[in-house]
């Protein structure tokens, strides 16, 4: 046991003297630089953007039927199921065909500062109206902008449902009066290297 230990220590010493670990590390680092095939860095946000898989849990989206009617019937189950009580739903009656039933949401808002992105709301929803979408650029300058309301959430998210995701798309930065936006070009994507 003692002998073994002694031998081990000598090996360690030799490794240290010859900078073996350091060289190994550098080989990997330089390896990435030499061959483009093994670069895993995504040039986000200037040139590329990660498009997550469907299972991703990002910003909520409120869905519509194929003919454009709101699926949400303002049943408030999502807000009841939410562990952080961050969804507020106030129903109202509407007979104009806005929703799939005459009960629609007057108010539907979620406070992202509190949201855990647990997806309970999605599970509770009887009409599959609310889904956690694939938007993840949620940083903003004050807390009010972290409260997303119905109008905003009903706008289709940039990544369509059909797209299975898990790719890196070409992107560019766009400056808008509200700040900077990363616009992805979903037609030009590449697999992520691992």
């Amino acid at each position, binding site marked *: 046991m003692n002998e073994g230990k002694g031998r081990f220590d000598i090996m360690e010493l030799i490794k240290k003297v010859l900078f073996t670990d350091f060289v190994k590390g550098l080989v990997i680092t330089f390896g990435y630089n030499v061959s483009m095939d093994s670069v895993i860095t995504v040039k986000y946000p200037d040139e590329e953007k990660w498009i997550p898989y469907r299972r991703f849990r990002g910003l909520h989206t409120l869905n519509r039927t194929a003919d454009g009617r709101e699926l949400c019937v303002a049943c408030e189950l999502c807000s*009841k199921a939410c562990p952080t009580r961050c969804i507020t739903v*106030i*129903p*109202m*009656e509407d007979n104009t065909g806005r929703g799939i039933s*005459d009960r629609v949401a007057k108010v539907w808002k979620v406070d992202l500062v509190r949201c855990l992105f647990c997806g309970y709301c999605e599970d509770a929803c009887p009409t599959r109206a609310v889904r956690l979408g694939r938007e993840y650029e949620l940083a903003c300058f004050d807390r009010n902008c972290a409260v997303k309301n119905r109008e905003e959430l009903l706008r289709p998210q940039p990544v369509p449902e059909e797209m299975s995701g898990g790719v890196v798309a070409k992107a560019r930065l766009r400056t808008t009066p509200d700040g900077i936006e990363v616009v992805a070009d979903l037609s030009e994507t590449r697999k992520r290297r691992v």
Partner: protein
Amino acid sequence: MGLQPINPYKRYIMVTVKINGKEITVEDNTLILDAARDAGYEIPTFCYQADLMGIGSCRMCLVEIEGQKKLQPSCVTPVLHGISILTETPTVMSARASMLEFLLANHAMDCPVCDKGGECELQDMVYKYGPHKGRHAEPKFKFHEKDYALSPVIIKNSNRCVQCMKCVRVCREVVGRNVLGALGRGDHQEPTSFFRSFLDCDADGNCIEVCPVGCFMRLPYRYKTRPWDLKGADTICPYCATGCRMVIEHRDGEVIRARAQLGVGMNSETLCARGRFGYEIINSEARLTTPLVRRQRHGTLEPATWEEAFRIIKERMPSLGGNTVGGIAGARLATEELYLFQKLMREVFKTPNVDSGSRWDAAAVEGFIAATDMAEGGVSVFDCMEADTVFVIGSQVSEENPVTEYIIRRISAGRRMNVIIAGPRAMKLDSSANLLLRHYPAAEAALLSAVILDINAAKLAASADLTAAKDAKLDGHLKAAGLTIDDVRALATKLRNSESIAIMAGTEFLRYPHGIESLNLLKELLRSLGKKVRVMPLLDRSNQRGAWEMGVHPAFGPGYVKAPAPGLGISGMLDAAADNSMDALYIAGADPAALYPDEAHVKEALSKVRFLVVQDIFLTETARLADVVLPGASFAEKDGMLTNQEGRAQIIRKLLPPPGKAKVDLDIIRALGEMYDRSFGPKNAALVLDEIRRAQPMYADVSLAFNNKRNVDNKLDNKAALVKGTKAALTIRKFEQAASGQDAQYPFMLATGNHLFHSGRLTNYSKTLNDLMKGMTVEISEEDALASGLAAGERVLVSGAGFSVTLMLTVKKGTKRGVAFIAENFDAAPVNRFFRKGKGAPRVKITKA
């Protein structure tokens, strides 16, 4: 067995049964359901409700009886001595699950949309007992696609119905409107109005409350919230002296529902339209939210701070005011507030001039209290309903105290008893009566005198002279009342043949006080004949009795203790004001300008008061005349107590803060007092109640704990809440019958009172209640309408001496001929303009407009 008979007229036979192996002894004829619940076993039900007739239709309550093959519905099967009942066997459980599966087969299952979701009995049952998977794959049967409105307050979705028929039964057996029925058969049976047409009903929403599912729903509450988002306060309805318990609920500060609770309060699940839909006044835009002051003599009322308002009061309202200062408190304030109000007037302003309410003469009130035995403590309406005969006189109970009326209807239908109704107007309760006496307005005295003479006839018969005198007198009375001798004999016979009698005396006696003496006389006479007589007042303001018991009256202080020097009542104060000798008047929660009978006089008098302070929640007719207006709190914004007409002291609870700068009335009264005397108090409602309890034997046992706990077997009568009796020396003054101000060229006598949908002017601020009516109405009998060529729905001109108004005509079958009724609740038709101070019932004529 050591069992004491509770009711000596009833024989109790006890039987022993076994429930799930547990042996219990119950009264014979008890339902298996009640016995099981007594023994502590829960049995699910849909169609059973303690106060409705059992129909055994839903089969949720099936139980197994040992030795019987078929399961039995426990809600209609009475126990038999020695049987053994099983409520939790696999057979029973699977029967329950199957019943639920059948109910769900055609059920809409649209819980996410349904307003009942979250508090639905069907959801709860399926969750607890039901199959959690359905096998029914066929398309579901649908009654209709869209929900349809049955009335301005009811919306219906029959696809969710479980056919329990509670709605139909409550409407027939309790409310007595009988406008619902079932169309179709089997699971295609749809309880609805006839041919689904729009209902013209009492809009009380009791059908909504009893419906276990989302079939009958509140229209004003439609799609506003889920029940779990509501915050509620268990409180008392402020709109009449029945004193119904209800829960008012708000979401985000807006009250959106009032509901009654099964087995809680004397009303259980029932309310009337005012109680159930009158909550809108709380959030009304018209609420006063800041003090108002009149800075120049004839200027307008302008917003001010509390400091400024109080400063002006202090400058202009003399303490030690003595006889030139007066106070009038409304009978809607809480008991604590009323107590403090009279204390403020008597101890700070040193004035004996205090009164409550706007309409009744103080001496009449004193007489009425004596005649109805109020000082002898509370009398439960349920005790009254145990009498052989119930005699309702001087009240339009169906409109003024609807839930009292439900109780009378429900109990009288279930036992052999007489219900006698005397009054000029036909009303819904007439159908429960076995004797109706239709007399002229203000003729209660004549009717009662006639019946007293008839009961005494035997004594008088000894002398021919006396008999002749009696006959002459009797004829006079009969003529004055518009009755025949047969009517009076029938009444006398029924009274003579009853061992126990309950007299329910309404506010007509206060409006026309000459009847009070005869009322008292009849009571004494019946007692002298050895009968057990109970008298219960029927009042129209929620805390009228509380106000009197707190001594808001010029002749007596708290607990009916005679005041050392009686002061002026409302009439006296107004007379003094009209004479320019009122320096200051403080009116809290009362609206005499709109309600005192004789509008011209009251308005003139109030404008002559040198300094008028009005405290209210709306800018009432009276507040418009004020120099300073203080914004008070509604019933939803304070803690306190109300004493109902039976003498039940019940608690109201605070749900919301008062709007804007408004304050709780108790705090305003106390702050006013402190301005003159730092030590004025007690400082909060609980301490005031303590002081009341200490000082007043009547209220010594009153408790802040809620009166009734929830129960399932309808034991709704909580005697502990009734106030105790006291010794009081009240006098019944003799009032002469005042002649009508107008002569015979006006063919109709005018009667007034509260409309079914309104209570004073307060409910005018509820949009839902206002929308229930197409317009203000005048009501006459069918015969009169026919004779004068008028039809219901027509616009007619009602004119009295010096005032006329255009109203819509309604026609009622069974109302006394020559009687017209206009409710006192409408701003645009102030009925007090027809009245003249010191005169009897006014007369009017009605012509096509």
